[in-house]
């Protein structure tokens, strides 16, 4: 590749963006629904890691990517339940539970991979096939990007964003989740069990994080690697913080982070400039911090104006 123009005009670049944004969308949706229920859920990172491994293991066991994804989702829900049980039933500090689960997950996956294969990092999976939709794929550019080389989970991520918006606004459970996040005591006072609502929200979050993990090992790559999540769960949290709790905006920022990530991966192939890949690797994280700061400044300004008005 010769220039930035080549990079930005290649279809592959956009496909990479979408592929890299998908796990962030899952993670940010998990963060969103936890946050709506008033819980800061930092165990998403660990949940994604565990379910990435579970997905890889069961996809090879049943020789089917779909089974792997389903069981990874169940594993995510299970992790969500551990988180919910500890925070709500045992009254443990959310952040401490999150740290505990992340430590647990990081060790557990290495332990399991070693017990199964004898090496400490990789476990191959049965990858998900890409979907090529006839007719639609013939649309120039858009068809090539959206309907030719993506897999089922990418479309599922898009559906989940839309469904999440609908779920939180229009369904009884969604509205209950939001009100628990605002004032749990008020919800209890009208006879709804706020703890139960919180647990349901955290289970959904676990399932979403599980799908994100499964996407990493089954959809994006064809193997599990112990370092493959690399802070994506935390970037999901950041996207949620910047998205101010609105599903579409959150997803948009997940895509922005996906773009930066894709750029940092592919910019190495441009011959004209010579940025070492180590420094390009810092980009997604730097942009996340900058995004958080910009969002905080805007929020502060708005608050000031509100007080004045």
């Amino acid at each position, binding site marked *: 590749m010769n220039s930035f123009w080549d990079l930005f005009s290649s279809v592959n670049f956009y496909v990479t963006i979408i592929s890299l944004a998908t796990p962030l969308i899952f993670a940010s949706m998990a963060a969103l629904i936890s946050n709506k229920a008033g819980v800061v859920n930092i165990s998403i990172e660990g949940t994604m890691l565990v379910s990435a491994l579970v997905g890889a293991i069961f996809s090879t066991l049943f020789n089917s990517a779909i089974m792997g994804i389903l069981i990874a989702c169940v594993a995510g829900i299970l992790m969500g339940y551990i988180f919910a049980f500890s925070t709500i039933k*045992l009254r443990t500090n959310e952040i401490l539970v999150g740290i505990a689960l992340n*430590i647990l997950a990081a060790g557990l996956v290495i332990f399991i991979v070693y017990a199964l294969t004898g090496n400490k990092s990789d476990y191959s999976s049965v990858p998900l096939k890409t979907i090529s939709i006839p007719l639609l794929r013939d649309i120039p550019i858009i068809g090539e990007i959206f309907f030719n080389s993506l897999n089922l989970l990418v479309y599922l991520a898009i559906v989940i964003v839309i469904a999440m918006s609908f779920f939180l606004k229009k369904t009884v459970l969604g509205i209950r989740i939001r009100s628990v996040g605002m004032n749990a005591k008020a919800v209890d006072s009208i006879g709804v069990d706020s703890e139960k609502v919180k647990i349901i929200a955290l289970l959904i979050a676990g399932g979403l994080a599980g799908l994100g993990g499964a996407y990493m090992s089954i959809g994006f790559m064809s193997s599990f690697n112990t370092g493959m999540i690399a802070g994506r769960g935390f970037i999901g949290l950041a996207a949620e*913080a910047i998205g101010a709790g609105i599903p579409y905006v959150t997803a948009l920022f997940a895509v922005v982070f996906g773009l930066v990530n894709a750029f940092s991966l592919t910019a190495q192939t441009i011959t004209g400039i010579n940025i*070492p890949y180590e420094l390009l690797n810092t980009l997604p*994280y730097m942009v996340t*911090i900058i995004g958080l700061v910009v969002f905080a400044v805007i929020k*502060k300004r708005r608050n000031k104006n509100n007080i004045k008005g």
Partner: protein
Amino acid sequence: MKIRERLMSYFKNRSFSFQRFFFESLKTLMAVLIAYLIAIIIIVFVSDNPSESIYWFIVGPFSNLMEFGELIKKAVPLMFAGIAACVIVKANQFNLFTEGAFYVGGLVAALIAIYIKLPAFLAVIAALVGGGLVATIFGYIPAKLKSSLNVNEFVSSIMLNFVALWIGVFLISNVVIDDASGDTATGIIPEISKLKVFITGTNITYGLLIVIGIIILVKIFFSKTLPGYEIKMTGDNQHFAKFSGINVERRVVMAQVLGIFIAGVGGAAEILSNYHRFNWKTLPGFGFDGFMVTIIAKNKPLFVPLAALFIGYLRAGADLMAFNSDVAQEVVAIIQGVIILLIASERFFSSSFFKRLLDNYKERRNHKRMDVMKNE
């Protein structure tokens, strides 16, 4: 002085209760036992020779002086990380840049040791303090963002960890790389800057003394000085602290900066004690461990060494087990996770639970006595 008196009275009200201390210890013991039970069950499942694995895991670290020294060596960075996290958590902050601080501190200490020639004693001090200071510059970013813009320090510090890591990897693989090493690593750290072994026959270095000194200083800081009180109070109840006239923003930043500095010194001490070259290409993981240590220590500075020794014992045992049998040492992660979950939970064997148990018992005893008296 008014504020000082007010603070003193505030903390005197929460004086030491032996009963509570006893219950807390009992709870910790229960958590450890349950975690060990789970680990042993797992080992029995995966190991071909479980009795030998379990033997190495539990008794191994005490089998000879060398192995015991290994335990202490593993505990020293955990003490650094634990006391760093303790200072940060006292202000109820979760700045996880302690992780990156270990990396930055280690790298900067190695560079200072290699490129700046100083006489013996100064060389060590310069490397340690330099490592700590550069780490602090990084760690100040999430702290300041939290206090002035209310940016979640947790997320921003984790992102900063990765930034620091990749900058470090860039430096050691392009700028300060020593081709003679056959690896992406810095040059050899001169002997003069290293922390020497101070108990012969083991690998225990002066790093242990440094961290014990720091822990004592932190203890004095929190129990005898005004800023220490103010940080504690800010952590306990930020609104109350604010209305008492404490500059909450400044104390929040101060706690994080202090913690990060200690973690940076810890990284420097780790590199100067146990490495010939700086060659870390991933984050060392001590930052998260530190938070774990301080949870187990119930956030009390003087218990941090005990908690660190315990985790060091777990890891030394696990290493021996992995070396001598077929179980991976990562089984420790399961134990650690379970212990933290149980210790941090309010409702698992809480002191009120024990109190209820005690009251029940007394009540039943009284009933029995009454019955006996009635029958008489």
